[in-house]
């Protein structure tokens, strides 16, 4: 087989793979959002260290107070550290693709169940639901899937991972959906084009 024959053979691969490669895109990094987070993380770490070292030795009062202060600050430090590491992990993956191993793949059926790689909202306790935000309001992902768009649907645009810089955009709290195309059905239901086949449904939040 020659290189050109291989290129021709690639030209005949399955249509759904071609479509997936067309649909799948991540928004380019927006400058300004990526730089402050590591700085904020560093600052938080400094504050935690300062609290750990300052409170036991710098506080006046009896030994009991000191001990409880140290314990309190230590537990606070632990919490802060937990928050910080969570933030760092999220920042480190600020592009979904940058992970290593096979964990970076978007799920074939992301709406099924609460996978550990769920978006920001799923990390905020089990009860939190994944939502989409549009200029028209907030929508909740129902977990339902549709194989095709209903007639009369219109394209709204590409979803971004929930950001802080604009209320005009289309946002999702679900990391896997960042970069996916969002559609609106004639009845107001939103449809997220999944990387494989199908659409995830979202309805207006009550």
């Amino acid at each position, binding site marked *: *087989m020659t290189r050109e024959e*291989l290129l021709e053979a690639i*030209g005949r691969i399955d249509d759904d793979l*071609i479509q*997936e490669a067309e649909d799948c895109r991540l928004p380019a990094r927006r400058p300004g959002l990526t730089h402050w987070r590591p700085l904020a993380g560093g600052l938080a770490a400094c504050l935690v260290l300062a609290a750990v070292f300052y409170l036991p030795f710098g506080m006046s009062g009896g030994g009991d107070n000191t001990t409880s202060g140290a314990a309190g600050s230590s537990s606070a430090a632990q919490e802060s550290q937990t928050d910080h590491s969570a933030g760092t992990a999220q920042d480190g993956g600020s592009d979904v693709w940058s992970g290593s191993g096979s964990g*970076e793949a978007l799920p074939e059926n992301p709406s099924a169940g609460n996978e550990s790689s769920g978006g920001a909202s799923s990390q905020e306790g089990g009860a939190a639901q994944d939502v989409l935000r549009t200029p028209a309001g907030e929508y909740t992902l129902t977990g339902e899937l549709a194989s095709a768009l209903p007639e009369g649907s219109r394209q709204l645009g590409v979803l971004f991972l929930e950001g802080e810089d604009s209320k005009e955009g289309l946002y999702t709290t679900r990391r896997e959906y960042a970069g996916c195309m969002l559609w609106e059905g004639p009845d107001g239901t939103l449809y997220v084009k999944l990387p494989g086949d199908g659409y995830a449904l979202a309805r207006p939040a009550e």
Partner: protein
Amino acid sequence: MEDQQIIELYWARSEQAIRESETKYGAFCLSIARNILAQEQDAEECVNDTWLRAWNAMPPQRPGILSAFFGKLTRNLSLDRWRYNRAAKRGGPQVETALEELGECIPAPGRPEDRLEERETAALISRFLREQPQLDRVLFLRRYWYLDSVAALAERFSMNENTVKSRLHRTRLRLKEVLLREGVAV
């Protein structure tokens, strides 16, 4: 207009089918042709030829995924034009580089009877790609099906170019192993 309606227009031999195809998929097909051909005029002609080919193909065909159907037609037409241009030394640069890179996947010569048909090779590659992590699969397709440049991929996926290159390299090596194992040879 829905894809199904466009297909029905082709089946009804309505010329509106071509106008609707152009409206909905013209930009998509043009981006594929532009990646392959250096001359804008060539790219536009290939896209126009795409609708003609589609007109001749439907009926009897009824494509499952219309975008992929048009995309394949454009890609084939553009590669044909690219070959013609290459003979006249007017080829586009992305195809040459993609071909060079794909050379890594070609196993050593084997017996002629080991040679797989192009269609079988395509099926093999499809199966191989389905087993790859999604990022690697999409990068591979964008590079060797859509013939996007490495720089365009880096921008599209917010990655740096070296990461794109090394991921593509690793996927090519894995593909080579599969092609060897399955007996794809010259």
